[in-house]
């Protein structure tokens, strides 16, 4: 009984991982560079579950049919039961699948922001400074295609941020507001992920937009406007003067990667 449940759980875990990988929600939790490893894990777990099941059936058939080759029989029998799992162990093993099925996959949003310090420009350069050589090339030349991370990165690297004044920007992110913002300000934010959501760090651009009252926190918006360099706590940060703020769908890749 327990053995059968264990086999089913292993196979279920494999299929669960595979489904998360295929429908793209795996990227809500871990960096896409782990996709191949996740695929291998899913295959391995499924194979293991099936393998156990076959072995169990063989051992059972063997026990029924065979009495002449006692030594072999006992060896195999003993092995199948040598690692009996407890009910508690099975319950824990079932948790990832059960929770995964019960809780709808959802990327980190504004609620997770309250526990972390948001980045508006101070730290991005430090992070990016340790990026591999040639990463400078990855900065998108076309201003309209730069994302929030690109803008912050650009401002950190630049000796003259004011030279970006008036450049057109078009970014997507979720709405974040707290007491520090005036009525005509909000922050369009994203999380950056280096490994998994455990290390997710929020970043954002301050947006000036008169109509913030109509925006709901945590909703995804597409902001178009022009960039203006402002000094904030002694550093130059990009502020986005919005021409339009339109609601949009959650992107399939909600995080930005350094």
């Amino acid at each position, binding site marked *: 009984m327990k053995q059968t449940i*264990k086999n089913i759980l*292993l196979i279920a875990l494999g299929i669960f991982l595979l489904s998360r990988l295929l429908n793209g929600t795996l990227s809500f939790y871990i960096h896409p560079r782990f996709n191949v490893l996740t695929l291998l894990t899913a295959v391995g777990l499924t*194979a*293991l579950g099936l*393998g*156990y099941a076959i*072995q169990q059936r*063989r051992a059972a058939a*063997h026990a029924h049919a*065979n009495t002449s*080759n006692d030594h*072999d*029989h006992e060896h*195999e029998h003993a*092995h199948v039961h*040598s*690692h009996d*799992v407890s009910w*508690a*162990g099975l319950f*824990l*093993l079932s*948790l*990832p699948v059960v929770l995964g099925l019960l809780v709808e996959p959802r990327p980190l949003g504004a609620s*997770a922001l*309250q*526990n*972390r*310090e948001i*980045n508006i420009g*101070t*730290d991005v350069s*430090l*992070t990016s400074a*340790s990026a591999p050589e040639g990463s400078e090339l990855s900065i998108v030349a076309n201003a309209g295609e730069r994302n929030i991370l690109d803008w912050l990165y650009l401002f950190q690297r630049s000796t003259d941020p004011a030279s970006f004044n008036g450049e057109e920007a078009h970014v997507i992110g979720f709405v974040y507001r707290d007491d520090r913002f005036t009525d005509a300000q909000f922050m369009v934010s994203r999380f950056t992920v*280096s*490994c*998994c959501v*455990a*290390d997710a*760090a929020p970043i954002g651009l301050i947006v000036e937009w008169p109509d913030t009252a109509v925006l709901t926190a945590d909703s995804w918006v597409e902001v178009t406007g022009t960039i203006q360099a402002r000094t904030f706590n002694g550093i130059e940060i990009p502020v986005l003067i919005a021409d339009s703020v339109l609601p949009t769908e959650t992107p399939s890749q909600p995080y930005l990667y*350094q």
Partner: protein
Amino acid sequence: MAVGNGRVQRLWQAMTIAGDDFIDMVRYLIIGSMLAATMQTFVPQSTLIAFGSGPVTSVIAMMVLAFVLSICSTVDAFLALSFVNTFTTGSILSFLVFGPMVDIKSALMFLGVFRRRVVLYLILLPLALTMLITIFINLNLGW
């Protein structure tokens, strides 16, 4: 019995052992991950940071943070960088040194394999040494 020739059987044995080990260890990993996730969700980083800015308290705060966050050692440097301006050098160092050695998940997994006393040493020794050295750095070296 026609289970197969030696090589197939050995390969199979290797796989079942790996599977048994996986099932043995995965429980600790699951409990540990749940604990770490709970901590991350309900303990705001700012409370820990507010706890200490002195040469000793900052080290303690950052070590607690390292334990609570349980992030992998390849990326903790990125996180540590965001504390560089607000925290003492010794405490940043303690975060980087202590974090990869001890976190909730690994502590629980150790408990599953080693005797309790061994696990206690595995946690207390890095804790004591990291704390001593980084506090020494804070107090005596003006980095």
